[in-house]
C-alpha cells in the first residue's frame, strides 16, 4: 500500500468522525418491535409445527400414539393462529370497548365480528389445554409401548 492510499483512508476517517450522530450509533426498541418479534415467533412456531405435521403425514406410523401427537400438532397450530390473531387485534381494539369497574375490566362490548373474534381469541386455553392433553396421551402410549 502506497503513501497516497494511506492519506486517503486517514482523510475519510476524519470526515466520518466529524459528521457522526447518536442516531447512527444506537438503535431504539419500542413496544411495537417486541410485538413484531413475538408475532414472528408465532409464525415460526406455526411453520415448524406445520412442517412437522407434514413430515408425519407422509410417514405411515403403525405404532400407537402418533395419531394423538398429530392432533396435538393440529391444535397447537390452531392455537398459534388464534393467539397470533389475538395479539394483532389487541393492538387495534379500542380501549372504550373494555368497560372498567373499580379499575378492573368488567365487561367487553362486542359490536361486530372483529370484536367477537377478539373476545374468542382471549379464550385460547380452550385449545391449548386439549392439545397438551393429546400430547400427554401420546407420551403415555409411547411409554406404555416400552
Amino acid at each position: 500500500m502506497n503513501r497516497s492510499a494511506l492519506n486517503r483512508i486517514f482523510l475519510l476517517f476524519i470526515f466520518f468522525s466529524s459528521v457522526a450522530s447518536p442516531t447512527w450509533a444506537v438503535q431504539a426498541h419500542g413496544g411495537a418491535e417486541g410485538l413484531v418479534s413475538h408475532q414472528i415467533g408465532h409464525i415460526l412456531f406455526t411453520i415448524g409445527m406445520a412442517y412437522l405435521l407434514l413430515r408425519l403425514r407422509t410417514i405411515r406410523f403403525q405404532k400407537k400414539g402418533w395419531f394423538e401427537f398429530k392432533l396435538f400438532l393440529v391444535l397447537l397450530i390452531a392455537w398459534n393462529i388464534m393467539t397470533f390473531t389475538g395479539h394483532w387485534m389487541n393492538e387495534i381494539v379500542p380501549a372504550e370497548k373494555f368497560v372498567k369497574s373499580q379499575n378492573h375490566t368488567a365487561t367487553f362490548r362486542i359490536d361486530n365480528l372483529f370484536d367477537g373474534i377478539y373476545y374468542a381469541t382471549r379464550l385460547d386455553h380452550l385449545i391449548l389445554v386439549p392439545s397438551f392433553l393429546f400430547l400427554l396421551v401420546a407420551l403415555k402410549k409411547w411409554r406404555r409401548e416400552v
Partner: protein
Amino acid sequence: MIVPWRPVVFCDIGGSVLMLLLSCWCAHLAWQLTRSRPDNIFRNYIFLFTLAIVFFSISRSFGHLVKQILLLNDMPLIWQEIAPFSGALNSTAFVVIFAFGISFQRFQKVHNEIENYKNNLEEMIEERTDELEKSRNTLENILNNSNPTNITDLNFNMIRANDAYYQIWPRTGVEDDVVRCYDSRPGVHCHTDSCPLVQIIGGREVVTQEVSKQFGEETRHFILTARPFRDIDGKLLGMVETLQDITLRKQAEIALVESESRFRKIFESNPDPVILARMKEGTILDVNRSFETVTGLSRQEAIDQRPEDLGLWADLESQEPFRQTLKSRGEISNYEANFRVGSGEVRTGLVSASVLRVSKEPCILLVIRDITTEKAAERTLIEMDRMKSEFISTAAHELSTPLSTMMGYTEFLRNPEEFDSFSDEQKLDFINEIYENGESLSRIISDLLDISRIESGNPIPLVLQRCNLPTLLGKKIRAFTTHNPEHRFRLELPETIENPSIQIDRQRFNQVLENLLSNAVKYSAAGTEIVLHGRELDNGWEIRVEDQGVGMNDEQIAHVFDKFYRADASNTAVSGLGLGMSVVKQAVEAHHGTIRVESAEGKGTTVIVTLPYTAE
C-alpha cells in the same frame, strides 16, 4: 352486545394452572420415555421437543398467572415492566420449537440410519452368535469324540482336554490347576523346534507327528495332528491336537517290516539268482546277490530294465511260451531256458516263477537254478555211456579177433591127422600166429589192467633200471621195420652222444614206443615214412615219433589222451580200444616225463616225449 370479561380471566388462570400441571406431567413422561431407551435417537428427539414445548408452556402459563395476579391486585405498571420479558421468553421458546420442528427430518434420517445400522448389527450379531454356537458345537463334538483331543494356548497351558485324552495321559495335580502340555505329555519334541505349538506359532497350518506311550510292556502309538486354534477374527489363540491310535497299524507295519526283512534275507541269501519284476512292463524291481554274481550285472544296472533288454534270454523264442504259461497258470516250475551271462557265456537254467503282489502291483518272482554244470555232467555221462558201449563193442571185437585166430589154429592142433598134413614150416607159422595173437591179447589185457589201476588211484608200478636209450630205440625200429614192411622206418640220433644211459622201466618204455609207433603205422598210409628221433636235452632225452599220416584236428588233439577216446569211432576206423595214448601218458608221467602232440589234418602227427635221466 356486552359480554362479561370474567370468563376470560378464569379461563386464563385455570388454563395456566392446568397447563403447568400438564406440562410437568408431559415432561415426566418424556423423561421416562427417553430413559427407557437412552440409545434411541427418536425418543431423545421427542424428549427434547417435549421439553421445548413444556418450557414454552410453563413460561407462558407462569407469565399469565403473574399477569392476572398483578392486574387483580391493581399493579398494572409492574406487569408492564415484566411483560416484555415474558413475551421474549415465549418468543425464544417459539424459535426453539421451530428449530425442533424443521429438524425433525434430520433426526428422522439419523434415527433411520441408526435403526438400520442397529438392525444390521443385530443381524450380524445373530449370525455371529449362530456361528459361535456352531463353532462351539463343533468344538464340543471334537472334544467329545473317541480320539484323545486337547486344546493348548500359546503359553503351553492345556486349557481343555477330553476324557479320551485323560484316559491315556491322566490328569496331574488338582483338577482346576493349569497343566502345561509338556508336563502332561512329555515327549522327544518338547522344548525343541519340532514342538507342534512352536510350529503352529511359526505359521504352520497342520503339524503331524508320531508319538507313543508306554503301558507296562505294551507301547501304544498315536498320530498327532495339530491345527491352529483361532478366534473369530482369526487371531491365533493356541492349537487343537487330535491323537489317533495307530497301535494296530504300527504293529502291522512292524510285522510287515519283519516279514519284508525275512523275505529280504531269503531273497538275498538264496544261492540261485532271483529276480522280482513287474508283471505288466516286465521291468526288474529287484535282484539278489547271486544274480549279480552269476550275470555280472550290478543291481543298479538291472533295476528298471527288462531281462530281454539286458540280453539275459539267450533264446528269445523260449520267452513267449514261458510268459503264456505263467499268465494262464499264475506260476511255472522248472522251465528250462538258456541265459546269457555277463561274460557272454550261455548258461542253462531252470526257471520257476510265481505271480505275487508288491504294493498292490502284480509282480513276478523268478528263481533261476543254474544247471549248466549238471547239464554238462549229464552230457558227459551220456558220452561216457556211449563210450562204454562203444568200448564194450570194440573190446569184444579186439579180443575176439586174436581169439578167433588162436582158436582156428588150435583146432588144427586138436586134430593130429589134419595137423600132420601141414609142413613143418607151416606148423611153425601156425604156432607163431597163436603166440602173436596171444601176445596181442596180453597187451590188451595189460592196458586194461593199467587203466583199471590208474582209475583206482594207484600209480603205475615201475621197475627202474639203467638202459642205453639209443640201443632201445634201434631195436624197436628194427622190430617195426620187420613187422611192418609196408612202411619205411628211420631212426635219427645225434652223431655224438654224451650220456646214452637213462633210468627207466624198460618194459614200460617199450610199451610207450610200441604204442606210439603202432599208432603211427595205423594212421599212416602204406609207403609213408615214420621217423623216430632221439636227442639229448640238458637233463634227459627227447624222443619224437613223426609220421605223415591223416593227422588230427584241434578237438581230437584235445581228447587224444582221454580214456577210450578214438579219433575215428566209426566201424570203418582203425581198430583199437582207445586206451593206448592214455596208458602212454600215464607211463611217461610216472617217469616224471612229459608228452605232447603236434598235428595237423592231412599233414601227419608228431608225438614228443621227454624223459629225465633219472626217474626217481
